[in-house]
C-alpha cells in the first residue's frame, strides 16, 4: 500500500493566514466557460458557503479546490501548496450522494480513509468507533448502508470525511437528497459536529436558508460563466433555537440580500 504524506500543516501556518487562496481562476469545458474571474480567500476554520443556480460551476470550483482538476487559468493555494496533487492531500470531499460502499458496514465505510493510508483494518475501525459514539451513531456501527436511513447514511458519509483527518472539508450539497425535516436535523448535527471538530469548510448548496444557517460568509455565484456576484457576511448568532433564528429580522434581511443577488 502506498500512502501519501499526511502531515496536517495546521501548526506551521499562523492562525491569521488564509487557509485557501483562489486567484483569477477560470475554467472551460470545451467552448463553455464554467468559471471566470474567481477570487476569494478562506480563513482557517471559517465556514464559507457558496450558493448559486445549477450550472454556475459550484461543483467545478470544488473539484478544482480539491485538486481533482487543474483550472485552465489562475492559482489555488492551500497552505502554500499549489499543485493539484498537493491540494488533493489536504482536502476531503463529501459529495451529494453518500457513496457508501454497500459491502462495507457503516464503521468500515467511515474508516476507509485510514485504510487507504495503510492503517490496518482493525486499527482503522477502532479509531473510527469513538466518533460513532460522539456523533450519535452508537449502535449503528455494524449496520450495512442498505439498513440505514438517508439521514444516517449522510452522517456516516460525513464521519468518513472527518476521518480523513484533513483540515479542509469540501461539502458539495451534502443534504440535497434529504427531505426537509431530516435536513433541518442534519444541519444542526453538522454545526454540532464542527463545533467539536473545527475544520475549514467550503459548503456548496443551492438552498439559501441552509447557507445562511451554516456559514460565516456566503458567496453568491451567477451562472454561465460562473462568477462571484456578491459576498455576504452571514455570522448569525446561533445560541437561539433554530426556529427563532430563521424567523428573526436579521435572517430575513440577509436572505433578501442573497435572493436579490441571485435575481430571485
Amino acid at each position, binding site marked *: 500500500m502506498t500512502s*501519501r504524506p499526511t502531515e496536517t500543516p495546521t501548526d506551521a501556518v499562523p492562525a491569521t493566514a488564509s487557509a485557501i487562496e483562489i486567484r483569477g481562476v477560470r475554467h472551460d469545458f470545451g467552448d463553455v466557460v464554467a468559471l471566470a474571474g474567481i477570487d476569494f480567500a478562506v480563513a482557517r476554520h471559517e465556514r464559507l458557503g457558496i450558493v448559486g443556480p445549477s450550472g454556475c460551476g459550484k461543483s467545478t470550483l470544488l473539484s478544482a479546490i*480539491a485538486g481533482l482538476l487543474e483550472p485552465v487559468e489562475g492559482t489555488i493555494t492551500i497552505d502554500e501548496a499549489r499543485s493539484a496533487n498537493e491540494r488533493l492531500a489536504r482536502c476531503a470531499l463529501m459529495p451529494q450522494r453518500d457513496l457508501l460502499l454497500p*459491502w462495507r458496514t457503516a464503521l468500515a465505510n467511515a474508516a*476507509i480513509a485510514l485504510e487507504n*493510508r495503510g492503517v490496518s483494518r482493525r486499527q482503522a475501525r477502532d479509531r473510527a468507533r469513538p466518533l460513532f459514539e460522539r456523533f450519535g451513531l452508537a449502535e449503528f456501527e455494524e449496520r450495512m448502508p442498505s439498513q440505514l436511513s438517508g439521514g444516517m447514511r449522510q452522517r456516516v458519509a460525513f464521519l468518513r*470525511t472527518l476521518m*480523513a483527518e484533513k483540515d479542509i472539508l*469540501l461539502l458539495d450539497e451534502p443534504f440535497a437528497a434529504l427531505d426537509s425535516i431530516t435536513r433541518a436535523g442534519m444541519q444542526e448535527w453538522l454545526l454540532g459536529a464542527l463545533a467539536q471538530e473545527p475544520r475549514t469548510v467550503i459548503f456548496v448548496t443551492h438552498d439559501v436558508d441552509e447557507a445562511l444557517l451554516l456559514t460565516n460568509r456566503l458567496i453568491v455565484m451567477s451562472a454561465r460563466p460562473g462568477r462571484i456576484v456578491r459576498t455576504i457576511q452571514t455570522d448569525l448568532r446561533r445560541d437561539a433555537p433554530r426556529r427563532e433564528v430563521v424567523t428573526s429580522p436579521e435572517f430575513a434581511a440577509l436572505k433578501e440580500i442573497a435572493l436579490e443577488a441571485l435575481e430571485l
Partner: protein
Amino acid sequence: MTNDSPGIAAPKGKRWKRSRSVVLTYAPPALVVIATIGLWELLIHLLDVPTYLLAPPSLIAETIGERAPELWSHSGVTLRETLVGFAFAVGAGLAFGLFLHFSTIARRALYPLLIASQSIPTVVLAPVFVLLLGFGMWPKVAIVGLFCFFPVVVGTIDGLAGVDPEYIRMMLTLDASRFGIFRRVEFPSALPQIFTGTRVGATYAAIGAVFGEWAGSEAGLGWQMIQAKGRLDTALVFADIVFITAMALSLFGLVSLVERLTIPWARRGGVMK
C-alpha cells in the same frame, strides 16, 4: 404496549407469505415439467411410437437405473473435463480482464478482436484441438475453456469499467492509491458482473466438454451418446442428456451459491449504479 398481538401475528403472517411466494415461484414451472413428461409418455403409448425413435420417460428412467454404474463413470470423465476447463477459463478470464482494464493500449488493441472472435463458432475448433492434443482430456479442456473464457472476460471488463466515477473521485480525496481504489472500490463493485459472466460460462461448460468428446474421445457422456446412437439405444442417449443437463445445472447452481455467499449485499438492492 396495549396490544401486542400484531407483534406475534406479524412474523407468522410473514412466514406464511414467504412460503406462499416460494410455492408460487416453483410450483408453476414444476407442474409444466411434470405435465410435459406425462404427455410425452402418454403420446408415445397412444401413437405407438417405436422406442428406438423416441424413448418414453419410463424407459429412460429404467435405463438410468440399470446402467447407473456406467453412466456415473462416464459422468466422472466429462465432469473432470468440464471442471478443469471451467477453472482455467475463470482464472484466465479474470486475469485477462484485469490486464485489459489496466492497460489502455492492450484494451484498444485486443478488445475489438476479442469481440470479433466470438463470430467464430468454437464448436468447429473441436476437431482441430483433437488433432493437436489427442484423444485425452486436454482437447476437451481447451474447448470448455474457450466456451467459458469469453463471458468471464467480458463480465470482468464491463464490471470494472462500469464503476461510478464519483466513487473514484471520493476515494482520491480520501488518500487512496490506484491500487487502493481497485481493491476497495473497483473490484468489489465489479463482482456482480463478474459472477454474471461466470454463471453464463457455467451453463456452457458441460456442453463444451460433450462437443469435445463428439470430435474424438474414448470415454465420457458424449462418447457414450455417440455409441448409443449407433446401436439405436435411444433411451441411453436420453439418459446421457439427463446427466449432462444435471451437470450443467449443478455447476450453475454452485456458482450461484458462491455468488450469494460472496456478495450478499448485491441482493439487497445495494448495487451501485
